[in-house]
């Protein structure tokens, strides 16, 4: 991927801006940010489609939300583009799209783990004075979901814990 659009679905959310900045640095190619509205996913789809039609050299779409990721699949098909799609976070629809190959991969932040693990760590520390990982940050992710492991994750994503 050399020419990416990074779809920001919530104006003013610093975390989303940082993800796009990270993608720019890591990719080394061109990354353009595209602003859409998460309250209007159909509108977001047409906006992504416009962007792909306007610049056929775009060969990657990075979505930062599962609903936008799925909308990007329709947008790429609608624009007749060859662009590949990656998204942050999971939903049942995202996992199906990964299984059929229309989304390349999802970066799962494993938010469920982000909530669950700290409570366990705190409880162990409180009751047993346990410290895990030598007191250093314990990583809760990212879990990459690709075509290989999508089937395993599918049921869990439906249930909302992945």
């Amino acid at each position: 991927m050399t020419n990416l659009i990074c779809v920001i679905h919530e104006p003013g959310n610093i975390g989303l801006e940082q993800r796009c900045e990270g993608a720019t640095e890591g990719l080394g190619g061109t990354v353009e940010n595209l602003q859409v509205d998460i309250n209007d996913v159909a509108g977001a789809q047409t906006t992504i489609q416009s962007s792909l039609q306007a610049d056929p050299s775009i060969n990657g779409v990075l979505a930062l939300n599962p609903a936008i990721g799925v909308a990007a699949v329709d947008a790429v098909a609608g624009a007749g583009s060859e662009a590949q799609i990656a998204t942050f976070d999971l939903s049942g629809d995202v996992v199906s799209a990964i299984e059929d190959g229309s989304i390349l991969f999802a970066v799962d932040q494993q938010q469920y783990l982000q909530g669950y693990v700290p409570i366990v760590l705190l409880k162990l520390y409180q009751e047993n004075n346990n410290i895990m990982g030598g007191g250093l940050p314990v990583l809760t992710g990212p879990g990459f979901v690709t075509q290989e492991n999508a089937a395993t994750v599918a049921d869990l994503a439906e249930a909302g814990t992945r």
Partner: protein
Amino acid sequence: MTVAPAAAPPDERMVTAGLTRRFLQRPELGAAVGALAVFVFFAAITDAFATPSGIANWLDAAAPLGIMAVAVALLMIGGEFDLSAGVMTATAGLVVATLATEYGLNVWPAFAVAIAVGLLVGFVNGIVVVRTGLPSFIVTLGMFLVLQGLNLGVTKVITGTVQVGGLDDADGYGSARALFATTVEIFGADVRVTVFWWIGVTALATYVLLRTRPGNWIFAVGGSAVAARGVGVPAARTKIALFMMVSTMAALVGTMQALRLTSVQANSGIGLEFEFIIAAVIGGCLLTGGFGSAVGAALGALIFGMAKQGIVFAGWDSDWFMLFLGLLLLIATLLNLYVRKRAEVMKR
């Protein structure tokens, strides 16, 4: 034998206006000029905007907005607002998706339930406004928040999460999609079927407004509800019916969006109510009621859709998106106003 009296000058209200004059009196004239200007502008500065697939794309963006703008325009001509219409689209989508995926209902009966919910919401809006005489702005703002809360709360209780997905696996999805959300190939471009719904709704609304008795009632209650009541117009019933029509149309559009995306987020639709009103006003509706047109509102939605997509086609820095959109809409509306003022002068 008496001398025939000299023919009295005909009542000026009864004179048939000439064709040019009638053309210049149309409320949608300004919007038509604005739409043309926005189209020419983006067609000139971008390559893809005026291609068949480009056109199909911005029509797709404008169509759901257009359907709602036409419905909202009728309500505004009738002198009322509906701020709950945006969230109502999400409510309907959630009803369809939840019934179809969580309770295994066929999409069609689920759609019927969504329409029934739309009728009910509109009826409550209407009856409260008419009975209490409170401004519809505040009544429907209340309904907006109620629906927003229900959308999130009920979805969370039923599904344990904040979105409902997997609608494409439900019974009846294929046939419902074919009618509400599929695309049709025209000149090599995939045109969303919503666009034809939009044209149909606009034509129907125009016919009702200009050629039927309820259409007269709508203008009358928007001009002055008391005076309308005085000459025998069922003012309360007309207003309630308008509210019900708007919410039902929102249910239709919400179902279309749900079928198209196959999943619905509990937070969707928030903020869209203003886009509906903006499109109606760009199209020549007065905020005070009694004046406006369905075609104008449809053109207003077209301006909005073209401007929104045009900015992306032009590749302008998307951090400034809202600024560009706001300025374009202001310019289009000023042009609209200018054309209408000129027309006022010329028709005298």
